[in-house]
């Protein structure tokens, strides 16, 4: 296949960026999207040009390192799929593809398609944990958890922290990310002790990082590579209200 690519290039946070166009031939339908970019980078390096910087690591859709807005959609238009798991067979010969970084005030561009998502770590630092030290735990089976609760908690815990929810939201809200963690712990007995403080602290940090408000648009759920449901956002709102009112 032959593709026309329009890719965001930006030298550093301090520089302004712009789209640059490239054509790439010999794209195999079995390639992953990132392998397609690898191929372009090999060409650029050979020509003495700077390769395009994009974050990636596991290439199995689980580490959450890859990002990219592909033709206007975070992680591309294939549902429940991270960019690294998107394959070129979903495109046609002659297609034009626009590739941009995840854009949000709280995710400054570092270079080209690479952004800084450390705000997510700081939100977790604010309370996304159960405060237990190593060593003091009781026997694991002393704490039965109804299977259904465990399954729901797992659904929420599956979040990979990629930030697509933020990139897709017109308000650049990180509500889905934060809600996934709050839900995961609120659904389990282990999370009860710190339940209130956690919801308040994580939401406060989310606001402090400059993420926008959730206005129930639902784009986040649509692009989430792990299919995290916006039901979690409803749960977070309840958790927050309950905590704020008591």
């Amino acid at each position: 296949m032959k593709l026309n690519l329009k890719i965001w290039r930006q030298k550093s946070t301090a520089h302004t960026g712009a789209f640059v166009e490239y054509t790439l031939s010999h794209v195999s339908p079995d390639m992953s999207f990132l392998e397609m970019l690898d191929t372009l980078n090999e060409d650029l390096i050979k020509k003495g040009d700077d390769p395009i910087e994009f974050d990636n690591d596991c290439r199995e859709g689980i580490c959450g390192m890859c990002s990219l807005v592909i033709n206007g959609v975070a992680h591309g238009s294939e549902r429940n799929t991270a960019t690294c798991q998107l394959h070129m067979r979903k495109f046609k010969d002659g297609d034009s593809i626009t590739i941009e970084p995840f854009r949000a005030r709280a995710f400054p561009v570092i270079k080209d398609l690479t952004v800084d998502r450390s705000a997510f770590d700081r939100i977790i630092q604010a309370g996304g944990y159960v405060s237990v030290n190593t060593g003091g735990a009781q026997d694991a089976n002393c704490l039965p958890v109804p299977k259904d609760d465990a399954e729901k908690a797992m659904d929420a815990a599956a979040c990979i922290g990629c930030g697509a929810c933020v990139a897709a939201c017109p308000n650049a809200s990180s509500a889905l990310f934060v809600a996934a963690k709050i839900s995961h712990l609120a659904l389990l007995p282990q999370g009860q002790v710190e339940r209130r403080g956690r919801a308040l602290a994580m939401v406060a940090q989310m606001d402090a990082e400059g993420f926008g408000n959730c206005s129930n648009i639902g784009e986040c759920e649509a692009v989430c590579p792990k299919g995290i449901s916006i039901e979690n956002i409803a749960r977070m709102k309840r958790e927050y209200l309950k905590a704020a009112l008591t």
Partner: protein
Amino acid sequence: MWVSAAKSKLDSKVPGGAIAEKWDQHRFESKLVNPANKRKFTVIVVGTGLAGASAAASLAELGYNVLSFCIQDSPRRAHSIAAQGGINAAKNYPNDGDSIQRLFYDTVKGGDFRAREANVYRLAQVSVNIIDQCVAQGVPFAREYGGLLDNRSFGGAQVSRTFYCRGQTGQQLLLGAYSALMRQVHLGQVKLFARREMLDVVLVDGKARGIVCRNLINGEIESHAAHAVLLCTGGYGNAYYLSTNAVNSNVTAAWRCHKKGAFFANPCYTQIHPTCIPVSGSHQSKLTLMSESLRNDGRVWVPKNKGDKRPPSHIPEDERDYYLERRYPSFGNLVPRDVASRNAKTVCDEGRGVGETGLSVYLDFANAVQRLGQPAIAEKYGNLFEMYQRITDQNPYVEPMRIYPAIHYTMGGLWVDYNLMSNIPGLHVLGEANFSDHGANRLGASALMQGLADGYFVIPYTLGHYLASTPLPAVNSDHEAFKASANAVREHLKKLLTVRGQKTVKEYHRALGAILWNDVGMARHKAGLEKAVESLRKLRADFWENVKVGGEANLLNKNLEYAGRVADYLELGELLTIDALHREESCGGHFREEHQTPEGEAKRNDEQFAYAAAWEFGGTGKAPVLHKEKLTFENVHLAQRSYK
């Protein structure tokens, strides 16, 4: 090609006494750091995978000041996140005969009697605490309807001792450790340095006192001083170019320590995982593992006849060869990885492989779907089936999966003693980066166990003893040793940027991978290994004359990072090959064609090779020096491994 040390410098520090009491006794005899004094110590932890995150969090909880480093933009993205299948522990919840003794025995035997007994026993002992700890953190393990934890059996085990979170066990365990780490960052006990690559370890008076790393965003070379350094930097499987490892996985941190004097043990023990998605073309950048748990319900087969090109559904039952069930009736499809991989290679070499390339075998769920129904299979393996379909465009509910072995894990690593300390005082090595517990072959679901055992339950004790019993005068990063190291790092980066040759880093990496996969892969022989050493030397020389890196040193430059890693892999590749050449026996993941039983099984040579080979760096391109740590088996009877 190598020289043997006149006298081995290794002291494993294994405590005396009966095996079941060693760890207790050792903890009792270890010195403690007074609670008020802990804050006077700074510990560097490189890596935030299961080993690094659990160690950093646990040490911070005790009151040490911890500096935590990782390559990714967040500690949560370490390669451990990708582990799918599960984690072992000798809980014996299913009441099916498990015990600490049995987990210990299985691990020593699974490792083909090339691991240190005392370490393995301790691993089995603390395995039970790991599950408790993870559950307390809120790790959502799979559960039964009664609310208790569910277990499954996993490659190579006859009991169900594997705990799991769907097909995302590594993710959930890592997020547990990461959340503990984040809590300590919040409390100010851990300082986080993400997007950093450690490029050197700094020794003062022969002790590890800090690191030099590159800030990957602005290229700055930073020096950090501490009282001890913990290396938790993962394995080196990516030396083979195509592997199931994340693309940023590397040997650089470990290799630079090796060049500073740390011994590298058993590099030739590499694990080739039997159930990976086959290679689809030359563009391929990595291989994807299909969790081994699939072998619990999937049946492996190829056509009985050579070159049978019919689609699988057209091949009648009696023309199929379920070769694992046939050859190993008691373990069947659940034989250990090395055995399953080698058998896949054998049937493909016989011309019975399937798929376009003939380099794959079927993993068939038809029987399981019939027996349990599609919903039950979907509940167990749904996400794996989806992943398979996404990558191959084929539906595994309808036609059998195609799988082929791929490099997956490395049992070798920096040599450590019972305290997880390398031969450089103060330099401790945890997780996949060390060589300690898996011998020549790792059993499924044991790496997560080992990483967390090292980090949560071993290092908090052994590091305390080191700090309490070693004079460590104040050192800061203005020390000459840091300046010298930082300069050397800058020189090395400059050298990479100024070759300005014609070939890309990836081209070298691919060439390196081809040599290692073909000659130092699933089956090895003397002539091939000798040829490989020659080819690797030529490739390395060519790299330094002809590589083209480009870009700048003071900006984000992934290609420059990559060049540094491949340069180190080229050197490691040679040591790995020499190690494979010197080991004139077959054991675990190391199969020498010259050494096999009449049935084609691995044949060890305990008389001559019951030792860990710890290599001392002899200089680039110079002969490495072999030190032997003799392995004695007092609790497990040395026997030929059999899974018949």
